[in-house]
């Protein structure tokens, strides 16, 4: 079957196409070059429409234990957004912690066709993949969490060979079926189990003796040498603490040229100016990033309203629990592997702190000049649920709208941010980079994020609308692998997406010390810790796509 999308304005930064009118041809689920004399089976007239690849969310908590803990914690969050089943779709609930099926439907209805869970605990990987398996319409993948797991910390403390550490990182990626690696409060989740309440970049872990700096550099270098496309995904030390901008700047400087991705950097960009000792550090971050081209970021934009924060950072979440709204929260120490903290939260526009968090996020977007190194996220659901993306896009693309919105937030907060002085407006092309081309490139998704020949035919067609929020909220057409799944912002067909993984080379002999470790200390066998391909493929419900890695190197 040959499909033709005729006459759309195409924004495809991967292929340097900036709003040019192009016809797009689709056959067998992929985009193809214009065929000579082929009979078109189905033509969509998209003249005057904006055409982009399906959007990709590179950091969204959509699957795994902490999300389900958060769902359990907040029935009242779901009650206001109960979703009826239809002949095609399953029932579920939405708002801050949408159920799995609703997550898939709503992302697709917003023009997204891929989403990546950034904090999969190895010990919880099976459940994370089961939840993602119940999330239709989206391709997905997960970043596996390392850095507070006792096996790594023991390897580092015992000065194990770097090759062995790399083997362990690679083994974990295979075992947990991951596409990338994330570190959360490096060493801090483990330190919290030893009753350390704070761990700064150069502070020693009370038991193992190494510092977060050691852990970040070990993992970042390990991933680079393993040839993983996405650099170490870092949720740094001191999340949410005024003054943490210094930690973030020090973390950037520590890389010394190593690639790194700093996630939800808004939560790590707080300075201490002013009476309240709380101000924006976004300018300092943006300035330093110019000198470190190997560092990318995503924002973790805060939007006003009720949500729930869910993080692997048990240490910082325990600390933040005093601000829980409603007053109820969960913290867990998990399996000598990691931890989690789930704290409901309400961001209020009249609050000085929350308005400043909001402003810092927007400042970060507007100050960072290279759109290829910044991704559009709210760290769903931590800064806000993902449905706020169209509103966020409008704030970035529409200066007047931004100004109007600023009138409604705590005015004092804006004095501690440069936001009121920033004139920049994002272009359509920029948005296509932030939400498609950039994440695809950073994650190493070979066939996604663009609409050139060979790409998977994940395509979103929008009605051009000066109100960018309305435009990005309700795409006219969304195709997944060449099948029309959404029309006028409503799901019309349900298909399952694939799971993307990366599989770096490793020496199988790492399983000898690992098996000994599991047998001596663990309550799960190494053999059962590993997640098999069959569990994801599950008789055809799922599909695994192995993304390429570079050849392994040694330094």
């Amino acid at each position, binding site marked *: 079957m040959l499909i033709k999308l005729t006459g759309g304005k195409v924004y495809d930064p991967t292929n340097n196409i900036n709003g040019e009118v192009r016809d797009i041809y689709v056959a067998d689920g992929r985009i193809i070059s214009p065929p000579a004399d082929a009979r078109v089976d189905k033509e969509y007239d998209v003249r005057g429409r904006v055409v982009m690849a399906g959007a990709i969310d590179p950091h969204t908590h959509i*699957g795994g234990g902490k999300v389900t803990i958060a769902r*359990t914690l907040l029935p009242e969050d779901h009650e206001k957004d*109960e979703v009826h089943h239809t002949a095609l779709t*399953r029932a579920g609930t939405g708002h801050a912690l949408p159920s799995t099926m609703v997550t898939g439907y709503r992302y697709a209805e917003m023009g997204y066709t891929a989403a990546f869970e950034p904090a999969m605990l190895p010990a919880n990987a099976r459940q994370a993949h*089961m939840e993602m398996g119940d999330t239709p319409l989206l391709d997905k993948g997960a970043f596996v969490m390392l850095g507070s797991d006792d096996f790594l910390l023991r390897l580092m403390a015992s000065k194990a060979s770097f090759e062995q550490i790399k083997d362990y990182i690679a083994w974990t990626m295979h075992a947990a079926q991951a596409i990338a690696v994330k570190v959360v409060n490096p060493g801090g989740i483990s330190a919290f189990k030893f009753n350390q309440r704070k761990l700064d970049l150069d502070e020693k872990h009370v038991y193992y003796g190494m510092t977060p700096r050691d852990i970040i550099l070990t993992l970042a270098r390990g991933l680079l040498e393993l040839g993983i496309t996405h650099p170490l995904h870092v949720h740094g030390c001191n999340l949410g603490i005024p003054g943490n901008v210094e930690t973030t700047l020090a973390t950037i400087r520590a890389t010394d040229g190593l690639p790194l991705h700093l996630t939800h950097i808004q939560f790590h960009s707080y300075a201490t100016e002013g009476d309240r000792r709380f101000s924006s550090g976004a300018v300092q971050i943006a300035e330093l990033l110019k000198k470190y081209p190997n560092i990318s970021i995503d924002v973790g934009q805060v939007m006003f309203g009720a949500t729930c924060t869910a993080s692997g950072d048990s240490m910082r979440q325990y600390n933040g629990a005093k601000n829980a709204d409603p007053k109820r929260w969960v913290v867990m120490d998990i399996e*000598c592997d990691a931890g989690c903290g789930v704290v409901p939260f309400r961001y209020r526009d009249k609050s000085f702190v929350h308005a400043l968090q909001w402003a810092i996020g927007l400042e970060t977007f507007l100050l960072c000049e290279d759109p290829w190194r910044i991704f559009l996220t709210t760290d769903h659901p931590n800064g806000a649920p993902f449905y706020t993306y169209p509103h966020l896009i409008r704030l970035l693309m529409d200066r007047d709208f931004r100004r109007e919105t600023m009138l409604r937030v705590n005015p004092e907060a804006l004095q501690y941010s440069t936001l009121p002085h920033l004139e920049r407006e994002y272009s359509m092309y920029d948005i296509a980079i932030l939400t498609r081309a950039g994440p695809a490139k950073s994650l190493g998704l070979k066939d996604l994020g663009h609409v050139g020949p060979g790409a998977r035919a994940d395509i979103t067609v929008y009605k051009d609308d000066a109100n960018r929020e309305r435009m990005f909220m309700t795409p006219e057409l969304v195709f997944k692998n060449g099948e029309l799944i959404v029309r006028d912002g409503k799901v019309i067909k349900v298909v399952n997406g694939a799971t993307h993984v990366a599989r770096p080379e490793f020496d199988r002999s790492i399983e000898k010390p690992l098996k000994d470790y599991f047998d001596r200390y663990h*309550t799960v*066998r190494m053999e059962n810790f590993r997640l098999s391909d069959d569990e994801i493929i599950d008789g055809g419900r799922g599909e695994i796509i192995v993304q390429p890695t570079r050849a392994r190197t040694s330094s």
Partner: protein
Amino acid sequence: MTAHADGDATHTYNNVTCPFCGLLCDDLTVTRTGSTLKVDNGCPRATAGFQRPLPPAKPMVRDKEVSLDEAIKAAAGLIRASKLPLYGGMATDVGGVRAIMDMADRTCGVVDHALSEGQYRNLKVVQTSGWIMSTLTETRNRADLIIIVGSDVHKLHGRFFDRIVTPEHTMFEGVGQKRTVVFIGEGLDTSAATGPRIEEVITLPVAKDRIPEVLAAISARVRGFTIPAPDAPAAAPPKKGGIFAGLIPGSKLTPAAPVHEIAGVPFDAIDNVAEKCKKANYGVVVWSPPALSMPQADLTVHMMTEIVRELNLTTRFAGLSLGGNEGAPSAASTCTWQTGYPLRVSFANGAPEYDSYRYNISRMLTDGEGDLLVWVASIGTDIGLPQTKIPTVVLGTPGLRLAQPPSVYIPVGTPGVDNAGQMVRCDNVVSLPMKNLGRSQLPSSAEVLAAIQAAL
């Protein structure tokens, strides 16, 4: 199931996960000869579960043996005719729960697990206060104080002590190497708390319904409140009373020293436990929700989690909930990620509606709500079909106890024995692969449910 396809060939399976309690021990070695299984290293419950001879079982409609197809058609007919089908039992793996959820959603039914009552003792606490929790591996390596409350853990989870409390190795030098085990409750089997890892075993014997009083006292002491001894009986009233005191017969005798105890437990013993809590590096409070049969057991769970919360102001402490038999955590977790709610959900209006009182299927059956019960019990034989007058469709392991003959019975395999799958462990973090050990050709609950749904 009669002759096995393999004949008498012997197969050995390693790293087998046991589905018969919430711990999901995954280090079992099981040998199969034909359709007979032998477990090498299981607890009594596992051994009984795996080695139970599987009685022959055929699909039945009313009291008549039928083909699987006919039974599926009959089940589909009943479900189609039902206005409010109740999907109960739910003792199966994640795949089975997914199939139940799909059908309940499509047919506007209600979902609840047979052992929800126990789980709700925890869930009510999570949904009102939250908690600080640990997991099995964390506790095994880290805990230097383990407090077991009101639960005969050794009887309920035969390998808990062996795997978590007394294993030979600990990961951390000087942390959790020697541990104190405290039992709060009467008649708890403490025999397994022995070995080189155990420094001290303390028992506070107290009747189950008075455990909250002991917990309240511990809670007060860890918060630094004093609990004064009761006044001496017939103590001399002050002032005026003093004048008459000499006139009361026997008043010259010293009053008996007041006994300072709470719920029959000496105060000093309770205070000693509170002191140990404060000094612990990593304490863990353990309970098995089904065992907490005192009234308002959720308040007892709450008291434990509040003690944990208080102790975390200065040291590290966590809860660890066991239980989770019959696939209860798999049902609750899957239902939660698919609907946002942990069971007791009705799809009657087309969207999930949650009410932990109203959609308690056991209550609904008693009060005559619902017009069809679809009961899935694929693991143990104990959670048999409850007594009810409404028609029933049972997907059950052969030998399942049945209070009355079901309208339709379809034998299904057990996850981890007859069918492969995944289950969620009692700590709600770890899930494990379940193997097909080739005992029988029985279909999985998910397969049967998919066939019924196709026939609807």
